[in-house]
């Protein structure tokens, strides 16, 4: 009994009740506790939430790149196939081929010791058994596709010879080399300045329209969400707290955290040096995480019932993890559901 907004067919990617733990010096920490989301083919899903809420960990978990972390519960399904805890060998056929990723920091995300051409050729040849010459042609084509001027000449450039924006374009080219069906963009423009940011986002949008690739866009920027997203997934403290269409979420946020986020997160047109309003309080430490609603320590709507354990519930046509969704809009959950 999920939200009706979901398509009837099996989505491209489905993440259900995902739990992830990391082994650290002082024991294990649970970075994800109940993450649910899905992405349909060709759809743009924005993932938002404060720093440390688990957005990147979710992306890495999907790719099986958790390093010292592991999936400790839940399920990841790709194209109908359960890939939870799949072997590295199996995941290698998915990475870059079915699901690609662009990371936040283009300055450090390319190997400084190899030319960008070499890295694109490599990306293509991992999944395509073609000659170096064919792969070269593909690489030049990709550089052209992402708007690098003089692609044949730039092929021989090293990452340090490119600007940040150009490097991120090269990252995008590498991610799209094998025509993936899902592109995860983890804050792809955070490290770039504003004009370059707009260009890179326009490029991603354009490429998405041309290739029909699904997009999971992790961002802090509600302006970007409004511009690009079909649906939005809101993270808080390792959980998904609200999911809905972009219009619904932006216009009628149900979860108090989403509302606070919309007020606090700067839009792209806000000057960067301007003091940005933050949500008062801080995310509770992992060992002090409330057992009920995790937002209870900062929520202006908090009430005694908020202490009890909760799950994502269907509220006003979307999914919300809150005992007291926004009352102003008259969509208070029926009491029966609250009690259940």
């Amino acid at each position, binding site marked *: 009994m999920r939200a009706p907004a979901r398509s009837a067919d099996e989505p491209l990617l489905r993440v259900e009740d995902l739990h992830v733990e990391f082994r650290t010096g002082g024991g294990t920490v649970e970075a994800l506790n109940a993450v649910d989301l899905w992405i349909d083919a060709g759809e743009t899903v924005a993932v938002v939430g404060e720093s440390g809420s688990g957005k990147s960990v979710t992306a890495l978990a999907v*790719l099986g*790149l958790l*390093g010292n972390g592991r999936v400790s519960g839940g399920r990841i399904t790709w194209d109908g196939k359960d890939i939870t805890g799949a072997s*590295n060998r199996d*995941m*290698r*056929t*998915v*990475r*870059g*081929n079915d699901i*690609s*990723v662009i*990371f936040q*920091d283009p300055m*450090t*995300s*390319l*190997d*400084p*010791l*190899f030319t960008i051409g070499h890295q694109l050729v*490599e*990306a293509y040849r*991992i*999944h395509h058994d073609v000659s170096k010459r064919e792969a070269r042609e593909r690489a030049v084509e990709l550089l052209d596709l992402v708007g690098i001027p003089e692609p044949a000449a730039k092929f021989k450039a*090293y990452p*340090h*010879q490119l600007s940040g924006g150009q490097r991120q374009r090269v*990252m995008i080219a*590498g*991610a799209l*080399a094998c025509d993936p069906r899902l592109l995860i963009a983890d804050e792809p423009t955070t490290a770039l300045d504003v004009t370059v940011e707009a260009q890179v986002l326009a490029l991603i949008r354009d490429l998405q329209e041309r290739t029909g690739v699904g997009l999971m866009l992790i961002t802090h920027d509600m302006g970007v969400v409004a511009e690009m997203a079909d649906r939005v997934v809101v993270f808080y403290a390792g959980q998904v707290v609200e999911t809905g269409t972009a219009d619904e979420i932006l216009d009628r946020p149900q979860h108090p955290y989403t509302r606070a986020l919309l007020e606090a997160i700067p839009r792209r047109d806000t000057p960067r040096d301007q003091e940005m309003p933050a949500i008062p309080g801080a995310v509770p430490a992992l060992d002090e995480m409330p057992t009920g609603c995790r937002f209870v320590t900062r929520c202006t709507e908090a009430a005694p019932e908020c202490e009890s354990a909760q799950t994502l519930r269907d509220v006003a046509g979307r999914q919300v993890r809150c005992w007291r969704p926004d009352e102003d809009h008259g969509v208070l959950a029926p009491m029966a559901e609250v009690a259940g």
Partner: protein
Amino acid sequence: MLLYAGRRLTYGLLVLALVATLVFLIIRLIPGDAVRLQMADAPGVTQAQIDQRTAELGLDEPILSQFGHFVGGLAQGDLGTSFDDERPVTTKILERLPATLELGLLAILFGVLLGVPFGMLSAIRHHSVVDNVMRFLAVIGMSVPNFWLALLLITFLALWFGWSPPLVYASPAENLGQNLVHMLLPAIALGAATMASIARMLRSSLLEVLGSNFVRTIRSRGASERVVVLKHAGRSSMIPVFTVLGLQVGHILGGTVILERIFAIPGMGSLIFEAVGQRDYPVILGCVIFYGAIFILVNVVVDLLYAVIDPRIRYKGASA
């Protein structure tokens, strides 16, 4: 690129000149003088004979003018003649150089061939039993003096297997088999510290690189761990390893002095050892200059290797 190499070389030569000057002064401060040591056993040596010999060797001149002669000769590539047998120092050293180079190269080979795989294994399986054992051994390898390790090897091989290294040295041209058997133990004793340093450095640099963003990118594109570790991370983690190797060459050269003595290898190490005993100043200086030149040359090559590996250094070097 050439400019870059030239600058490193010039810098190295300046350091060498400084070192040669210091050694020139210091050896004259060591108590005992060359003439008395030479004539000590001969009965009935008169003061006149001693004075005459001192004058022959030029040791009666003021130290500054002695230094002048030395620099003058050096400028023409002449290192002077030995006090001991009056043969040209260069000839004496060149006779001995091959054995030392062979020993040094074997030690480096041993260190690299074992240190690199150990370091990689340690990094890939970090915090495993293998890693912990290797890190423990590396600390030991780095702290045990090479001559002590050599004596230990000799003793235990003799005790357990009744095997001792050959006593008579044969050059590789005379008898390659015997030569290699002879070189085996000193090369291992010399290379152990190199192996340990390389393993340690490679472990830490590889671990750092394996956690870096670009490695995550390469993994995210579906590359195999073999490509990730050997091609990308391996290449990036080589730079600090080359630095260690360059410094280790210094330790190895120093170590040859004692190990050539222990194993009766007629290399530059035993030559300088004998020369110090005799206060054969020109030979000592000649050897020091050769040792220094080798060390500097190796480190210039290491600097060039950085540029070969890392385009950022290459381009910075070219524009500077």
